[in-house]
């Protein structure tokens, strides 16, 4: 499923150029511990987190994640946005919690999996 479609259904607000939203999403991972995400997130996953620091972009690049979704209405630092743009990592915001966001994403991807 495309990130663009997921962003629309979940009303995620992109902070990075729309071109990045064309990528495929393989699943999701939730976590605020960067080493845990580096150990356990899967390639192409959407990463749901409340971390906003610039280091999240490096983690997303090294793990080849499809996007980072920042929850609870938190706003990333300016250099996080700059880095995400330059490294071509989609960065999206939501006012919802990690629980709600992950629950909805799981539902969408599962329904999609049953159809395919």
């Amino acid at each position: 499923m495309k990130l663009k479609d997921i962003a629309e259904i979940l009303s995620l607000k992109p902070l990075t150029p729309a071109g990045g939203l064309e990528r495929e999403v393989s699943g999701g991972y939730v976590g605020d511990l960067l080493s845990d995400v580096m150990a356990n997130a899967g390639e192409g996953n959407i990463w749901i987190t409340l971390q906003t620091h610039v280091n999240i972009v490096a983690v997303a690049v090294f793990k080849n994640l499809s996007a980072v979704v920042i929850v609870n209405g938190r706003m990333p630092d300016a250099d996080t946005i700059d880095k995400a743009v330059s490294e071509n990592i989609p960065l999206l915001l939501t006012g919802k919690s990690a629980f709600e966001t992950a629950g909805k994403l799981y539902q969408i991807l599962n329904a999609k999996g049953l159809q395919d």
Partner: protein
Amino acid sequence: MKAKIDRTYEGSFHIVGGDFSRAGEASTELKSILLNVGIDEDTVRRVAIATFEAEMNIMIYATAGILRYTISPDEIRVVAEDMGPGIEDIELAMQEGYSTAPDWVREMGWGAGMGLPNMKKNSDVFRIESVVGEGTTVEMTIRLKDC
């Protein structure tokens, strides 16, 4: 097919602590060097993750150090050396979940106590040596695979 590395490439990066916004620069640079010489993506990912964790530990605990890499036809070796405080109990430090990271580091999402385990997991050979008051050296070897 094995990546055709016809010679040995070597280089190093100086890591300076304090400014976390620059964390990951050395690992990012090493990643692009590896991709340029034709190393497969899976191997590059393992090296990048292991190196990033090593880079972070130097920044957090040692304030300064050096990261050396060697790319040879059979393997990639990364050595992270610092002149920080050293580690008193290496066995304890290697345990998943053990961390002495200060609160401000934890707030940024580091300090899960998974850095050294991540380095080990992503390496084929992992060695760590540390002397209290002198420093720590981590050596990681990743073999190039026949795919």
